[in-house]
């Protein structure tokens, strides 16, 4: 595997040789910010196309085909179209909170995005409590959604925001417990250490039965966290117009759209990190030749491939299951999923204490 840390270290040394420490840090921070911005925008565009194409194929359609080869340039056209749309000034909104909401939603999703392990030596924020930091930041996005719904001064947005808040905080528990199950197995919360702990096999395979149950719980909770699939009540089109972002127009609406797609990528990335080894290639203990071949595939390709696969599964959910009702959704979380996740946590602790994991 190629260590990208060599490249960043070389750039850092080059900068330090011509300028003082603070200037080098400043330049590096600006470069990181610009790269983060470009990656964020590019991935969002890719995801919009990815979902439109997948949705079309699930329904035996072709999807966007006219702009560019196989409709590849359609998303760029859409991006420019949304930029030149009018931002309608509304009369009765709470102006400050209405403006603040997109900032909160986008900032929280960019910070989560920066925590993901992209490849060997390619990771931006790396706290020793990394995974807890991601969970904490993801909670801030909920505040943005609640503010958007409340400040719009519209009955549909209020219902959408309330549903979204109840849903996201409820499923965060199962999400946290599924991640906690893997932390018991790994014994660390640092993202880099988590990836390296999976060098001799991904946690999904190392953790016996509880890891597999945790993976299923995580997928269900992640679908609900991103307001997608069978849990898209906050945006139920034929009940609530568009949910919490009904009153937003033009690029103002685009931010919520952007954050929704990026959150899909982020939850897929966390699933990849916790269960499928992050950027770590598929290693089987004892198969030296096989492991060597797998190491030739770049780590970035491994990470993106696994994340896109998880996203594919989540998009698949959407076209397989009908939308649930709010009481069914909350009952499912509090009466089945969360007790089950707690039980699974105890099961994993017992497995680890008895040494039954691989």
């Amino acid at each position, binding site marked *: 595997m190629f*260590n990208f*840390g060599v490249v960043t*270290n070389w750039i850092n040394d080059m900068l330090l040789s011509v300028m003082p420490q603070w200037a*080098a*840090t400043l330049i590096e*921070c600006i470069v*990181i*910010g610009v790269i*983060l911005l470009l990656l*964020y*925008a590019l991935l969002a565009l890719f995801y919009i196309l990815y979902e439109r194409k997948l949705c079309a194929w699930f329904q035996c359609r072709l999807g966007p085909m006219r702009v560019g080869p196989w409709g590849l340039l359609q998303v760029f056209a859409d991006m420019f179209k949304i930029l*030149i749309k*009018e*931002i*309608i*000034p509304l*009369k*009765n909104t*709470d102006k400050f909170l209405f403006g603040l909401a997109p*900032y909160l939603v*986008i*900032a929280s999703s*960019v*910070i989560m995005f*920066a925590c993901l392990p992209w490849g060997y*030596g390619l990771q*931006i*924020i*790396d706290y020793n409590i990394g995974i807890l930091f991601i969970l904490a930041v993801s909670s801030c996005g909920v505040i943005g959604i609640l503010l958007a719904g*409340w400040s*719009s*001064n*519209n*009955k*549909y947005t*209020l219902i959408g925001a*309330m549903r979204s808040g*109840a849903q996201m905080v*409820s499923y*965060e*528990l199962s999400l946290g417990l599924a991640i*906690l199950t893997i*932390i*018991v197995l790994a*014994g660390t*919360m640092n993202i*880099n250490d988590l990836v390296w702990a999976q060098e001799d096999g991904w946690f999904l395979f190392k953790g016996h039965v509880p890891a597999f149950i945790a993976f299923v719980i995580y997928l269900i909770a992640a679908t609900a966290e991103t307001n997608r699939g069978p849990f898209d009540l906050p945006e139920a089109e034929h009940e609530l117009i568009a949910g919490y972002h*009904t009153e937003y127009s033009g*690029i103002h609406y*685009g*931010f919520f759209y952007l954050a929704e797609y990026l959150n899909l990528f982020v939850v897929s990335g966390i699933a990849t990190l916790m269960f499928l080894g992050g950027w770590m290639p598929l290693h089987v203990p004892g198969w030296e030749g096989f492991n060597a071949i797998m190491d030739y595939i770049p780590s970035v390709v491994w990470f993106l491939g696994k994340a896109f696969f998880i996203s594919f599964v989540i998009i698949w959910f959407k076209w397989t299951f009908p939308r649930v009702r709010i*009481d069914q959704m*909350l009952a499912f979380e*509090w*009466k089945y999923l*969360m007790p089950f996740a*707690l039980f699974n946590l*105890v099961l994993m602790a017992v497995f*680890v*204490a008895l040494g039954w994991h691989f």
Partner: protein
Amino acid sequence: MDLLMAISNGELAITATITGLALVFAALLIAKLIAPRSFSVKKAEPYECGIPTRGKSMIQFKVGYYLFAILFLMFDIETVFLYPWAVISRSLGVYGLLSIAVFLFILILGLAYAWRKGALQWK
């Protein structure tokens, strides 16, 4: 991660936050410059159903949502207590397992109480 040895995590987190804020600010600025603008009284009304809105929209809302938020608060705090245990659960062994079993028992007792009281019922 080698780059991280040169820059502290705090600075990187601030960089990411500023990037997010700058993205929104820059996009709004571009839209302000190139998007058309007009104002009419009808257009500025809430998008509801075509006829004027009746009553206020920022009202006290269904208490069911609030109840779930309160329940979430309790269980989330208790989950946060579990994180330090999870990290060192291997070195604690059977003793740690038994003590956390008592903690989880109280937690599940709380859930059972809320369930029995009908807090999980959507009315």
